[in-house]
């Protein structure tokens, strides 16, 4: 039996509110998505990056249908405000993710913004972008203490096993 007022209590509501209203939210996300398609790596607040990630991946799914598809072209036309990105979307991004099915974007959290608001920031990028990677590849460093000790231990073992027989 419902004992609460539906309108005033928001228990369990997960949809985010952004900007001045639902239309403003869509416009804001559209601008961010256009920037992402142009630059392939952008830095925004964490909430906006989280919302745009969903729309970015859906846009790639539509782009994979091909530019002859009416619905795909309508969607791309709506979501990309700068129309010189339409050929880039259909000819560069869609073939890049041909063999992948789901995860086209990568979102990583950054340290909070330096301003007074200390906003939680995130960097959102399409995978396969030409820029330097966010996660540098792990290299085993020979010069760490533990590695030097292990190297010394291996050399001693080799000397002992060489001198014995």
């Amino acid at each position, binding site marked *: 039996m419902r004992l609460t007022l539906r309108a005033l209590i928001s228990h369990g509501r997960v949809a985010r509110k952004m900007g001045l209203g639902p239309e403003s939210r869509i416009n804001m996300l559209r601008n961010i998505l256009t920037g992402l398609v142009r630059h392939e790596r952008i830095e925004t607040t964490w909430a906006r990056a989280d919302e745009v990630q969903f729309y970015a991946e859906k846009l790639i799914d539509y782009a994979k249908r091909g530019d002859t598809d009416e619905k795909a072209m309508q969607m791309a036309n709506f979501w990309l405000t*700068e129309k*010189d990105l339409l050929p880039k979307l*259909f000819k560069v991004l869609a073939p890049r993710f041909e063999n992948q099915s789901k995860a086209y974007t990568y979102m990583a959290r950054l*340290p909070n913004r330096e301003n007074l608001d200390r906003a939680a920031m995130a960097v959102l990028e399409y995978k396969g972008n*030409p820029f330097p990677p966010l996660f540098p590849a792990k290299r085993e460093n020979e010069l760490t203490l533990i590695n030097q000790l292990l190297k010394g231990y291996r050399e001693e073992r080799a000397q002992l096993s060489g001198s014995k027989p």
Partner: protein
Amino acid sequence: PCVWLRSRSTPVIVLLYRFSQCDREGVDACYPSLVVKLLYLCQKMSLLGLFNFLRRSLQRAEATLTDIAGFDGNFAPALAVHGPCVLPQPVQDGNPAPSFLDSIFWMAAPKKRRTIEINRTRRRAPEKLIKVKTNIEPCLECGHPKQKHTLCGYCYAKVRRETGEIRKQIFAMEGKPLNTPAMETVILYDGETPGEGDKDKRVVERPRKRPSWFILS
């Protein structure tokens, strides 16, 4: 109590008064004459005359009642004495608009000074102290402190700077804004040549040595 008697021509209202036991003699004397008069009026006169007659007869009946009950005539109190007023009197000359700030009866105020011990326990309660963060660890690449769930600030600043430089170069290559070509991009540093997979890509040349953390995957 009233009794409605209906005749063919006009309604006749006969009022019966309930009197007390001792008063029956005074009323019975005029009772037959009342009925006779009513019967006469309903045949001869109009409704207005009938109502006037009824009014007068009611007044007479009321007068007889007061005489029987023992009242003098005017219904003033028999005796009035000065004494203390029992009931609360309404205030005649109060303020025209008394503001709530004037009253001192319903504003909350502290009763006692809060002692320093109580103040200290409130100010130093665990929920008011700054929480200790246990999710800080050194970055494996540069050694600067970083939070576990975020990227290292120093390493990301390096990446961000280099990305900015690359973007400036791309903008210079494109010439005017909104001029993106429908091609992939590859970035080459000093002394590098495009490889096998870079045939149909546009090349962005950076006039510096390749940084150690930017390895071609």
